[in-house]
């Protein structure tokens, strides 16, 4: 059974591409930041903010909202874009990314923008915080769900597994981890730097329900999220296989794009690639 109608799926895919365009634009503007991860997670953040999450941009701290914890804080630009598109703040504010006085800090800070839920950047801490929220929610019989987005490489950090062990031991079925399995990190490919595989079996050994999905397939991702809601007495890990730099062919899978923004020339090329879907269609009217 498909959870998305054809119309909804196409709408989400179109929005994801628009978000990638906005992302490349603001990254060039910021002059520093991360490109590969946010592009790779554009589809999932679109699905989260425009289909999955129970949330209210007009009332960001609504008590019963689903909690979205971003553990790998460095990909926050795509979250900022999704929040702006969803109406949390004006799109013009995206231009302040990484600038002095901005609510849109280089790494997310909850005290400046409470809808971010947590402060993150130092890797390996999101799983524990999400588990704490999910545990407290269960104590209070709250029905909201807690989602935590993690990078693959932060599974090299012991703290991630301390949190995962706690969540598994406490059967936190209201917790869903979404792992950005894009295989790159700063020093190279994850399996060269410090292998993570077998990742699925590691989570299973920690008493998690695990699904592998194509992180660019809206249907597959949304189905996995729905399946997680039906899993009883286990937290769920969705290992989302993504292409770092997705949408801009010339940088896809290139780990050197982990932590740098595009230059002006690169921005133009990247935007052309995104607006023509990699040359498959004529450039759209707003080029």
């Amino acid at each position: 059974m498909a959870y998305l109608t054809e119309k909804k799926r196409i709408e989400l895919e179109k929005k994801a591409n628009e978000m990638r365009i906005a992302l490349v634009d603001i990254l060039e503007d910021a002059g520093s930041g991360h490109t590969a991860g946010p592009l790779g997670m554009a589809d999932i953040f679109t699905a989260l903010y425009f289909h999955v999450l129970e949330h209210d941009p007009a009332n960001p701290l609504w008590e019963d909202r689903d909690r979205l914890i971003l553990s790998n804080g460095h990909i926050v630009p795509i979250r900022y874009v999704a929040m702006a598109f969803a109406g949390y703040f004006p799109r013009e504010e995206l231009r302040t990314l990484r600038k002095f006085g901005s609510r849109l800090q280089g790494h997310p800070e909850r005290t400046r923008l409470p809808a971010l839920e947590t402060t993150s950047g130092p890797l390996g801490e999101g799983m524990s915080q999400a588990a704490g929220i999910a545990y407290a929610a269960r104590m209070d019989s709250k029905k909201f769900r807690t989602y935590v987005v993690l990078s693959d490489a932060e599974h090299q950090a012991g703290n991630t597994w301390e949190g995962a062990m706690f969540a598994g031991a406490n059967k936190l079925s209201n917790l869903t981890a979404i792992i950005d399995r894009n295989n790159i990190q700063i020093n190279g490919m994850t399996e060269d730097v410090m292998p993570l595989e077998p990742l699925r079996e590691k989570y299973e050994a920690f008493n998690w329900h695990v699904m592998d999905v194509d992180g660019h397939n809206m249907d597959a991702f949304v189905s996995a999220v729905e399946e997680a809601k039906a899993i009883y007495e286990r937290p769920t890990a969705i290992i989302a296989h993504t292409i770092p730099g997705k949408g801009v062919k010339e940088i896809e899978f290139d780990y050197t794009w982990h932590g740098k923004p595009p230059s002006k020339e690169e921005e133009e090329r990247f935007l052309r690639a995104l607006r023509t879907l990699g040359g498959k269609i004529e450039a759209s009217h707003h080029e």
Partner: protein
Amino acid sequence: MVNENAHLASAILAPDTLEQSATRDGFGMGVVAAGDADPRVVVLCADLAESTRSHWFREKFPERYVEVGVAEQNLAALAAGMAAAGKIPFIASYAAFSPGRNWEQIRTTVCLNEMPVKVMGMHAGVSVGPDGATHQALEDIAIMRVLPRMTVIAPCDALEARKAVEAAAKTDGPVYIRFHRAKTPVFTTRATPFAIGKAYLVWESDNPEVAVFACGPLVYEAVRAAAELAHEGIDTVVVNNHTVKPMDEPLVIEVARRAGAVVTVEEHQVSGGMGGAVAEVLMHNAPVPLVTVGVHDQFGQSGTPEELMRHYGMDVASIKEAIRAALARKEG
């Protein structure tokens, strides 16, 4: 003389008659009282329920006690998550591990994230005794007081520890409190005033020659030193400087100016600790001779608390010697 306004135990100068209790017991009692007063209070513990006295809370509020196992990084970040969901979490472990091992989680997920997590560091100082250097936290005040938004308290006895815990539960924001394993005299009473950030005089003189700022159970040893020196004609004031941050700057400055020489006393490294914090305040406001009692850039070792306090120069004799040294520098 003993400051009457502090309502201290009437037998304060007769150590053998005072009740002996560990400050960690004060945590155990205080957090149960805090749990009674506020259903949002939860206790998270990393496999040290009895020695942190968290088991008293576990017995009374099993549904609000969270076991995390030997995982101090998770202890802090999990608590930050629970705080984000509306809880007031107390995290209890040995100070050597929490905040020793999880400093960055406390920095990012608690302080920068402005979450009301209360970090309870047990087994501070060399008075831990036979467990040895690995378990004797001597750096915890330094690494906590450097964090923006963090409050740091070192209570002087079990009763004050209890008051500090109850006050921490009512305070917005992160709090660090350090506790000790060994039994020490309970010389304050229920009537002794306690408020975070408000130091008070335990011993006073009309014309003090040296001001002693102490924290933790060593406040009591400082009072003994002051009483003995009074017999020798050296007049001092002793301040219970329990809140290292935010420090009671007006009182510290006023007392230091009045005495003209200062001794700080703590069971901690002298660099970065309460003495360092006092020095930072005074160098801007009242630069007077200052002598620090504490551990001087060393690790502890196994032994009895008494042996270790003497060896590392934190017993009554060492405090008296420091007071004489401060006086000599002032007069020199």
